């Protein structure tokens, strides 16, 4: 355990003209910690995720990341080449729609292997063995390795996307509604898988979701956003069991009981 965070986000704001995307968001993320960002559509949670993952440049504020060599780097001052390298080695990004994160016209094996080839692995046998291993870890049969994700169900595609992201052993993974659009039973399986992988690999993750059950199952900490601002944050079970902000109380009281 280290006492230094992995990521430091400070006073991050993103404006679209006069409209607020997200405003004055500050948080730290430690290695192995899962942070859920919850809120309804338009609350700014996805804008925040895109800014922190450098897919979008913020209007103001800073974000620093502790690289593998222990050096702190300011994300928005890195060159594009460095950022893209970070993105495909030490980071992962799981999109809500797997088609956004996969190459739909190349095989499952190549989807998993691409990141390895991108960092210079030039041994087919080794790449394939790693792909087989990762497919089994996300519960995809080995005999589907040469099939294109077009032939996969939604849940399988999502699991493949996760394998593709985790194959380089990233330390930080961004997830945008990872279970959105899936059947409930498929969701449960995916959540359980994610939970296991996050624990086993000691991943830090920022999970954007509007589903409080997902937040409870995956995260230790959460931030509740409304109109671009963080209205409440804290331990996930504290926020859900003793919500303080009016908006959080509304969210929690709106959960359907089964």
């Amino acid at each position, binding site marked *: 355990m280290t006492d230094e965070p992995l990521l430091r986000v400070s006073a991050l704001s993103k404006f679209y003209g006069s409209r607020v995307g997200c405003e004055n968001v500050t948080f730290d993320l430690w290695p192995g910690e899962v942070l859920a960002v919850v809120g309804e559509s338009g609350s700014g949670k996805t804008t925040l995720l895109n800014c922190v993952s450098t897919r979008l440049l913020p209007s103001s504020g800073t974000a620093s990341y502790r690289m593998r060599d222990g050096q702190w780097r300011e994300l928005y001052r890195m060159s594009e080449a460095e950022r893209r390298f970070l993105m495909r080695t030490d980071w992962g990004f799981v999109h809500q729609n797997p088609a956004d994160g996969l190459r739909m016209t190349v095989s499952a094996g190549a989807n998993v292997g691409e990141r390895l080839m991108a960092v210079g692995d030039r041994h087919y046998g080794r790449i394939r063995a790693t792909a087989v291993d990762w497919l089994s870890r996300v519960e995809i049969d080995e005999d589907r390795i040469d099939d294109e994700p077009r032939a996969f169900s939604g849940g399988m595609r999502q699991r493949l996307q996760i394998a593709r992201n985790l194959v380089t052993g990233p330390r930080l993974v961004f997830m945008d509604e990872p279970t959105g659009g899936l059947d409930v039973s498929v969701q449960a399986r995916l*959540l*359980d898988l994610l939970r296991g992988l996050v624990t086993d690999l000691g991943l830090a993750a920022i999970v954007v979701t509007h589903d409080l059950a997902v937040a409870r*199952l995956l995260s230790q900490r959460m931030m509740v956003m409304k109109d671009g601002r963080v209205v409440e944050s804290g*331990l996930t079970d504290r926020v859900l069991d*003793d919500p303080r902000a*009016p908006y959080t109380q*509304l969210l929690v009281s709106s959960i359907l009981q089964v």
Partner: protein
Amino acid sequence: MATPLVVSDVAKSFTMHLRDGVTLPVVTGVSFSIRAGECAVLGGPSGAGKSSILKMLYGNYAVDEGQIIVQHGGGLIDLASASPRTVLSVRRHTIGYVSQFLRTVPRVSALDVVAEPLVERGEDRETARAKARSLLAQLNLPEKLWALPPATFSGGEQQRVNIARGFITEHPILLLDEPTASLDAKNRDVVVELIAAKKAAGVALLGIFHDLDVREAVADRVIDVTAFAAGKIAA
């Protein structure tokens, strides 16, 4: 004797923003301490705030006022104002908690549910499982259930999984929220034995027991929660 937990002047109320911001006071001026090797029991009628106090001690409820001083990692920290990260560390290493209900996770076996807190503390998975097996056996949970996820278990079976999960670690402080509520007499006795063993090991325990027999058997003293009543409106 060591005093790993000191609570002083803690107050808690709920503000119901959806009901025009009406404030429901729960407790105020909560002050007590627990020594190592003792089992204290929170007493008082339903709604007096016993559960709320336990939840504040576990960081599950926010604290409005006062301090909760915990011996943690060779120092003292105030749980009432600690950062989420510190609270997580306290839960991992210092304060254990047996809740009234088991929160199940799909597809994780009963055995791994029980072993998990040890694994989180860095114990080897097989060693943790071995310890989980012996606890589940002690609590008379049929062995054929161990490999199954507890979601479909009966209330009593789930509760025993929950107890095993809470007792498996060697946290110096253990909070018990009605752990025997849905158990039969035989298993209640097992829990009484487990608590006695914890006391002998120097653990500070604080619990809520509605079952008079169990309370008689384990309590060194009773902390009357009505003394902390926030008055006017009972929560």
